């Protein structure tokens, strides 16, 4: 039987085995051909919605079914792309070689919750906010709040090493995982224990479907916080703000939220205060700013000003240079939001110790207002970006991380590399005793979709190359997918030999999410 015929036979076989849970309809195939990689959104704006549709989508309901599907696919050399909710921003779930998309959203049970032990066992396909809601009903929280929480799954988080906005206290998803059920690319099922020697669980977490499919995991959960103490602080310069965060973390304090916005980011937030009637909060401001890029958007500027900014985006180096020259000397400096939460007694003591530390570091207390605004609007931005793309403009985020000694060097290097090509601003979040991540937001415009795509690729190439030269990691929590795959050999060097070995033994047929991750 030819490969094509074998694949058709497989899909028919699956259709018989799982009636009503296999689809080959064109709308489904188009819907499952995309994620939220801005590169794809640029193509979409250019009229190309689904360059690589899958042959079929299948919805398993158990680990056993997943294993059976994988075995059948391996037999016929049919590619498999594991799929959660499609909110990835790196092209990690695009079926570029066709085959099956295995959508896990029908595996969404909360299997067990043990409040005393602080653990929950959950199936991979549950949506983030559904899981959080189930835990909240029992007085618990996972503490994992990515801005995609309403459109991403538990399994997707594990597959891509996700971080939530409060990761500084609760950890990234790989820090919370205790046990994993994993179907490898041969259809064999593994139970992996966290903390084992060697810790194989850490070799599966983050593998983005290239080694197999995570179907279930046990994770650490926490009591809902009794108390929240979120405040805003102002620092004259980015460097002073970073130094303050470092001191907090190295004193053993664990704020839930630490976000330092650079001068430009902070400036846009301040502008927000003048428009109290509209949604406020730093992220909403970005959204408002971005709406200015879109002709017909709900921007607050006159039409001609909008056009002027649009034109400036074609020469972003002027805007960036102006911003970095002027902004540090305007009124406000950088905004830092620091929040503590948890047990009443501990959170109160931590907030108290932090106040002493932040004042000592030269911070000016802005009170609870900025903290409250951030909490209220922290999910706003992810859902409102798409309209930017309709106008030929694009926006994306680049989340890199490094140790404290190189953090400002990283900040300057990426800004300098990207500035000629895009309007760029940043905030520092996800802090650790040994380092911190930087979350760059960039926006630009091309002369039509093809030019936009070229510019987009160039921004990533120069940005990540600059990060790698400093010795930083090219991703803190968005993952790799297709977008960062070309940078994997430089990121890992000779250690890629270990990844290749894992791939060979767990997916000898090479069917699992082929073509991604630089394998």
């Amino acid at each position: 039987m030819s490969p094509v015929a074998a694949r058709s036979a497989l899909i028919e076989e699956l259709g018989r085995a799982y009636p009503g849970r296999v689809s080959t309809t064109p709308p489904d195939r188009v819907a499952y051909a995309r994620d939220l990689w801005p590169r794809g959104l640029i193509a979409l704006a250019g009229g190309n919605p689904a360059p690589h549709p899958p042959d079929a989508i299948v919805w398993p309901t158990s680990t056993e079914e997943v294993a059976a599907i994988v075995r059948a696919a391996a037999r016929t050399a049919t590619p498999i792309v594991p799929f959660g909710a499609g909110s990835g921003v790196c092209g990690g779930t695009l079926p570029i070689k066709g085959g099956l998309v295995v959508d896990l959203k029908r595996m969404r049970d909360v299997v067990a919750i043990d409040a005393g032990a602080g653990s929950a066992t959950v199936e991979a396909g549950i949506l983030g906010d559904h899981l959080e809601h189930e835990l909240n009903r029992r007085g618990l929280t996972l503490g994992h709040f990515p801005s995609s929480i309403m459109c991403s799954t538990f399994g997707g988080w594990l597959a891509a090493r996700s971080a939530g906005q409060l990761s500084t206290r609760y950890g990234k998803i790989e820090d919370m995982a205790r046990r994993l059920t994993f179907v490898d690319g041969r259809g064999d099922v593994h139970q992996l224990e966290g903390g084992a020697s060697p810790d194989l669980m850490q070799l599966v977490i983050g593998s983005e479907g290239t080694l197999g499919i995570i179907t279930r995991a046990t994770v650490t959960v926490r009591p809902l916080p009794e108390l929240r103490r979120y405040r805003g602080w102002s620092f004259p310069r980015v460097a002073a703000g970073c130094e303050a965060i470092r001191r907090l973390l190295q004193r053993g304090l664990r704020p839930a939220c630490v976000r330092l916005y650079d001068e430009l980011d902070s400036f846009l937030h301040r502008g927000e205060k003048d428009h109290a009637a509209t949604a406020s909060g730093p992220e909403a401001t970005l959204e408002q700013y971005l709406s200015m890029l879109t002709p017909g958007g709900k921007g607050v500027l006159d039409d001609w000003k909008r056009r002027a900014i649009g034109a400036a985006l074609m020469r972003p180096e002027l805007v960036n240079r102006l911003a970095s020259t002027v902004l540090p000397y305007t009124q406000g400096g950088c905004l830092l939001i620091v929040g503590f939460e948890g047990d009443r007694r501990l959170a109160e003591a931590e907030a108290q110790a932090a106040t002493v530390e932040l004042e000592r570091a030269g911070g000016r207390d802005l009170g609870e207002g900025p903290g409250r605004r951030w909490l209220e609007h922290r999910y706003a931005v992810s859902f409102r970006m798409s309209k930017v793309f309709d106008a030929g403009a694009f926006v994306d985020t680049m989340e890199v991380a490094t140790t404290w000694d190189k953090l400002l060097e990283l900040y300057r290097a990426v800004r300098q590399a990207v500035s000629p090509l895009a309007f760029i601003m940043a905030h520092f979040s996800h802090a650790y005793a040994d380092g911190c991540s930087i979350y760059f937001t960039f926006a630009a415009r091309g002369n039509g979709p093809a030019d936009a795509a070229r510019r987009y690729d160039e921004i990533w190439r120069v940005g990540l190359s600059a990060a790698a030269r400093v010795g930083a990691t090219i991703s803190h929590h968005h993952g790799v997918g297709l977008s960062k795959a070309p940078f994997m050999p430089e990121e890992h060097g000779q250690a890629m030999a270990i990844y290749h070995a894992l791939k060979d033994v767990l997916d000898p047929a090479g069917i699992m999410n082929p073509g991604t991750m630089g394998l």
Partner: protein
Amino acid sequence: VTALYADRLAHAVGAQHVADDGARVVVRPGAPAEIADVVRIAAELGAVVGVGVASGIALDLSRMCNVLHLDETSLLVSAQAGIPVEKLEAQLGDRGLTLGPLPPSSRARTLGALLAAPRPSEASPRVGRFVAACAGIAAILPDGIELTTRVAPRKATGPDLMHAVLGARGTLGLITSATVRVQRRQEARLDAAWKLPSLAAALATARALLVRGGRPLDLAVSGAGVLSLSVDGPAPLCDAERGLADELAHAAGGQPVPHAPLPRVPPSLTAPFERALPIETLESQVLAPALLGEALRVVGWHVAGAALVDIGRAAAGPPPPSPLVQLLKRRLDPDHRFPAWPGETSETGARA
């Protein structure tokens, strides 16, 4: 072991650093490149090579015992694998830094041994297992490839590949140096203890403290139901954490008692045991009379993942390698150049 070995090895590392003790050749390399040479020579000769192996070519890393870089801004230290913990701690101590609470029995072990063959007693409630403090490694694979992993606080760039080598007892890769997170000695330290009605009540209290967000320096329970707590950090936080523990202990029928260090499980008992038990399992097991009277260090579960308790008699010997480790071993080391699990790596060798 032949004269040929000795010649080639002498050329690689210097004659004065090669010794034939009858059963094996002991080689003392001075640099990672020399180890890579030795690995290649071993491959040509079909000999097993590893730290302290009982036959073949035994690596003695005692010359590779230097601190390579101390980054006090990021609280990271990079050191060669052969450095004894004692020596590393002394150098860190001069700068007000520490690796964290490690048992006296581990002070003579090397950094490489701590990362390649970790013991439950080296875990702590704040860091979890000691390997959780590892931010990066340089290692050599069985085919002689030298790799260095990129150091960052966290990454999302695929599998955390150093975990194929950490804890693998030299079977999949040989650690030549590592970067580990260190802690600054804190301004205040506070010890406290409570007597609870039972061991189970003391364990439940310890667990509740960790689940509620406590991050003590050390936490232990005794068979007699004594809960012992050490905290450090900013003074208000120390007080708050003791206050929370006090509240939890009282709710469980406990009373404060003078703090005294609980006796540790004798090193002779902990040494061979690798298996740490989830606290859920432990609670039923510790009630077995055979285990009463032991002091247990509760080292938490939230940081490194699994619930860990250092319990001397919990299990006999290292667990067998998982099927996945065996698969990886066959692929990375088809010619058995590195020792087989659980390794001919003796503790004496690892210490050397």
